[in-house]
């Protein structure tokens, strides 16, 4: 049985969706890019970063976890939303340590790419200089907590895709960090470099050892084209 489709608009553009789709999923298929960070197409949405916040019928909601429904009026590409999204990205830059010029993820980093796409020149908020650990206990994976943006992708991937539950949160608020399922560090967990959880990190928190420069700087995903270009290429004129 084919589910009945319905329609809604995003910035005045008419879009088709099927029941069960989120606003973000429907827009992805239609070729309309909603900036997002913690969302990953292979994982359940987490709703952590709020970058995909859109205004729906006058109310702000996260597009990744909000079901699309018939007749919705969604605002996505507005100055106010872009300013707010840039501000959220800035918050992440000052919360952790994100030195793009010498970071292994540069060019492949979704945080950096969103900074460029949303027009962030340099953070205007004060750096928080956290003192977090670098976990090198695993032979194949380095876990640099200073880079972690607490997006929960690895937590979701490890729990659902890998069935291992290697990751969780620790603490709350501004002192919250990523925790692993063992005393003594990642090396004592069930984590393996082939796990889904090792390949969904949007930044350089979870890094596969001896593999970081297989693609050199300058030829990486976001070096040539802005983040979201692949989605926008699907758009039918």
């Amino acid at each position, binding site marked *: 049985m084919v589910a009945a489709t319905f329609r809604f608009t995003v910035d005045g553009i008419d879009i088709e969706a099927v029941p069960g789709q989120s606003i973000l999923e429907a827009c992805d298929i239609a070729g309309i890019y909603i900036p997002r960070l913690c969302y990953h197409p292979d994982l359940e949405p987490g709703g952590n970063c709020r970058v995909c916040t859109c205004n729906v019928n006058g109310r702000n909601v996260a597009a990744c976890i909000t079901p699309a429904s018939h007749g919705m009026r969604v605002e996505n590409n507005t100055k106010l939303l872009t*300013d707010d999204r840039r501000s*959220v990205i800035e918050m992440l830059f000052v919360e952790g340590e994100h030195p793009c010029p010498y970071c292994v993820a540069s060019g492949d980093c979704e945080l950096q790419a969103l900074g460029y796409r949303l027009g962030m020149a340099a953070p205007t908020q004060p750096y928080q200089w956290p003192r977090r650990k670098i976990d090198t206990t695993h032979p194949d994976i380095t876990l640099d907590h200073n880079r972690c943006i607490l997006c929960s992708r690895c937590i979701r991937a490890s729990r659902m895709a890998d069935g291992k539950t290697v990751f969780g949160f620790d*603490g709350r608020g501004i002192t919250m960090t990523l925790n692993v399922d063992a005393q003594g560090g990642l090396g004592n967990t069930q984590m393996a470099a082939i796990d889904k959880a090792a390949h969904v990190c949007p930044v350089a928190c979870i890094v596969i050892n001896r593999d970081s420069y297989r693609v050199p700087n300058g030829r990486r995903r976001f070096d040539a084209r802005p983040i979201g270009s692949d989605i926008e290429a699907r758009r039918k004129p």
Partner: protein
Amino acid sequence: MTPGDTVTVEAIVAEFAADRSRLLDIVETVQSRYGYVSDAAVQVIAAGLRIHSVEVEDMLSFYAFFDRHPRGRVRIRLSKTPISIMKGATDVAHAFEAALGIDMGEDTPDGAFTLQWTSDIGMADQEPAALVNGMVLTAIKPGDVPTIVAALRQHDFQQSHGQPIPNAGVKSSLVQAGPLLSGPSAAGESLIAALALTPDQVIEVISASKLRGRGGAGFPTGTKWRLTRKSKGQNHYVACNADEGEPGTFKDRVLLSEFPHLVFDGMTIAGYALGARHGLVYLRGEYAYLWDALQAALKTRRRQGLLGSNVCGHVGFDFDIRIQLGAGAYICGEESSMIESLEGKRGAPRDRPPFPTERGYLQQPTAVDNVETYVCAARIMAMGAAWFRGYGTAASSGTKLMGVSGDCERPGVYEVPFGITVNELLDLTGGADAAYVQVSGPSGQSVAPKDFGRRIAYEDLSTGGSTMVFGPQRDVLAVALQFAEFFVDESCGWCVPCRVGTTLLRQGMEKIVVGRATLADIMATETLANTVVRMSRCGLGQTAPNPILTTMRSFPELYEARMQSGSFVPRVTLSEALADAVQVQGRQPVAEDI
């Protein structure tokens, strides 16, 4: 951990039927047995529940009342709020520091005492107050402290005997009862009235009364009950939000200690109306001292047939109530966080939809209502919808319990009709000199004298009941900064705008208060505050900037008075920035270096 301890922790897990959703209770029991939850205990709990240790840690690291390492046997948690500070909590803290020979946040070397600050504990009318191993000390004066410490040294908390502790105990706070709380209210009276109707008729009466949620959000209770009743599920649940955490509010404490049967009547009526068999009370950890009395009240009700099978002889209506104790997290007053916590998880809010009325506790339809809402519902069943509508305004029917504290002569709980002005409330409480009133707690509004003619009602100043009064001698912006700090401590951390934004706002406010902010800084803080409002996931983040935004609107002249001219003043002075270098080098910089 000895083999004996392993057996003990395993027995605790078994006591809760190795039920994952009771993890909060399991950890609470281990914490109270050992004073902390060790790594080894985490392993035993995880093994017993067949979950990962990281999941146990995810939950337990969230709550302020759990420890991973041993702390003092006597835990003194002194309440830190603008009201407690106004009433002398800082001097009390110094007195404790002197008596124990440690600083706030430290343990005595002998492991006997831990001294620390905590967020509001619901005693705003009798500050300075402290929690000591679940016991409450109130109206503490610095001079009382040596005697308190001496008595605590002798006290056996396991057996709870020893010499009496000075200042222990909470005094009754009800100053003025109105129609809601002054009528006759025998246990079960209103419940029997409700059981004479059909469930649909009960909902109709509640709808006709125009009762709205007393936590402050004001959702129509009849509509909520109808939606929950209509939702399909294996079980329906009635949840009572007794996580009264908004600084300055304490009216639910009065209801739970003096009118528990009205609360339980209301919940049981809701259970009947919704078709629920289970009720849950989420009691904030700070109110643990009410635990025994509430359990005794439930026991009495079971004996009287007001709970259990065939309630009041009504064949087929089975209902019972469980109390879940919280563990120190303001966010758990947010209904979806409360549900997560009830399920034994960290209190992170859920995205909506689905709403709890559809999928709440254990993914089943759940009606979450405030303590006072249940009391109102109970009295409406006994007295009728028209009686209730006879009080208040057209859009806000009935009366409201207001907890008033601060610079007023008669702090306490007042039952007043909706529509009362701030001025009238101040006259009633002896706060006529007020220069600033914080309505509905830090997440509410800062009200200046020019607005004291505004009304307490959903259509004007909506409130959960917290009313903090500040006289002309108080520093409004310093209070706003304290509120900003409160939200830093209480942000759950799940979403970025609230987790990081609350810290950045506190820093922005700090710069303003110390007089180092320019107009550009103040405007940047306002812009950031509005972003946090628009982008945060739940009510906590969406209202956390309110103390800053509403004081900017109500008291612009105070911001102007502290503002620096020019375009830029650094956050730290040059000498502060160089302090570390001066320390290391052992010399002051010479002029041309700078």
